[in-house]
């Protein structure tokens, strides 16, 4: 088995052994979204108008919440240092780790999103557009977020700092994602905005693994 496959398998098994950890962001996601109808009132028209934005904001927050521990254990027990010594490309290993994290922590959020779309009274057209933005957009959260996680991994108190650094960087993504759903409401063509999100994703996959591995090297000093 190739070393990269075994990293994937290892991460997967570790997460499976500790199930409560990846259920927490999921429950957080659902709870945050439940707060909105209670906070702004149960008017269906209002909920429909704010729904896509609420789901996206909640997704960003729960992604940030689940991300903090992305590299921490592997950093502390020396696993990442071993990878550097083993001759396997650290960038590729980081890519695999982040991808695995996305599958385990973020994909469940997308899976439960149809239920939340019902909570927020989204129409089917809006939902499909929202789903497309979530599928293309949330990996960007994981990959770009990974850089900041790798930088702060040596600090034992990363939490709020991580959000402080990352939220501004995610704003353009949020703008395009919600504009996709807004266009879907009127049955307009939303491919251009989706293309921008897809372009961001391609760029993120191409560049961030190197930034993450560099950041890990900085943290090792």
């Amino acid at each position, binding site marked *: 088995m190739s070393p990269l496959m075994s990293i994937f398998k290892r991460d997967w098994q570790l997460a499976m052994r500790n199930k409560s950890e990846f259920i927490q962001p999921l429950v957080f996601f659902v709870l945050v979204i439940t707060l909105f109808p209670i906070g702004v009132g149960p008017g269906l028209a209002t909920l429909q108008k704010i729904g896509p934005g609420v789901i996206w904001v909640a997704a960003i927050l729960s992604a940030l919440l689940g991300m903090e521990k992305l590299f921490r254990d592997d950093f502390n027990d020396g696993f990442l240092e071993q990878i550097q010594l083993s001759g396997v490309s650290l960038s590729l290993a980081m890519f695999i780790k982040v991808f695995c994290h996305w599958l385990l922590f973020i994909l469940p959020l997308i899976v439960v999103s149809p239920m939340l779309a019902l909570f927020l009274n989204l129409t089917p057209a809006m939902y499909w557009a929202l789903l497309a933005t979530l599928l293309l957009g949330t990996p960007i959260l994981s990959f*770009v977020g990974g*850089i*900041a996680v790798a*930088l*702060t991994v*040596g*600090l034992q*108190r990363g939490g709020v*700092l991580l959000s*402080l*650094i*990352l*939220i*501004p*960087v995610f*704003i*353009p993504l949020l703008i395009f994602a919600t504009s996709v759903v807004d266009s879907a409401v009127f049955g307009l063509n939303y491919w251009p905005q989706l293309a921008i999100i897809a372009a961001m994703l391609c760029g993120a996959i191409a560049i961030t693994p190197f*930034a993450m591995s*560099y*950041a890990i090297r*900085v*943290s090792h*000093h």
Partner: protein
Amino acid sequence: MFTWLHPYAKTERAYALCQSLFPYFLSAAVLGLVVGLVWGLVFAPPDYQQGDSFRIIYIHVPSAILAMGTYVAMATAGLVGLVWQWKTAYMSMIAIAPVGALMTFISLFTGAAWGKPMWGTWWIWDARLTSQLILLFLYFGVMALYAAFSDKQQAGKAAAIIALVGVINIPIIHYSVEWWNTLHQGSTITKIGRPSIAPEMKWPLLVSIAGFIGLIGTLVLLQLKNVILIREAHRPWVKKLLLTSSTKGER
């Protein structure tokens, strides 16, 4: 090509450079701001549409232009630090950050004050205003990350990486006006061919921009000198410097 720069990687040389540049920037700042602002705020003619409220342009435009330029300068300093491993590059990066944040804040504040009489609202979520606000948050992120590390060399590297990630935001800021085509008017000075501001209004603006550049330079140099002295406090040259300056003060 850049060999002439290399001596300034040493903190002592960099400090001396700050000392010698300081008076020039200070005089540019005082001269430019006094002349530009008095000329612009008092003597320039009122605008045909906006009357006297347009005069806020003499503070708003320089700070808005330079807020972005300062971010690029900060990220460039960070990049230089990452490529050549210079301590002084990280020091200048972190000296620039608060000054840039201040400029961004001034441009947002004056923009809001201008928006009220002109657009009819203090704040609109216009693309350009929003990106300027994001720029302010990016400055905060860089400063917060730097402050979180106790090892300042590592802090410099980390903040430099985040500053470079933030640079992606700069083209979005620049093109957002065209992308979203919203309220904010296009930029006045860079329009090629037909200048869209009358000369008697443009000259004070340019002088005021020069004054703001001087102001930014002055503040950055002050910050940088402090950062160098604090970080190098254990070095003999710093002790010597402080001793001579304190004996001078006693006399």
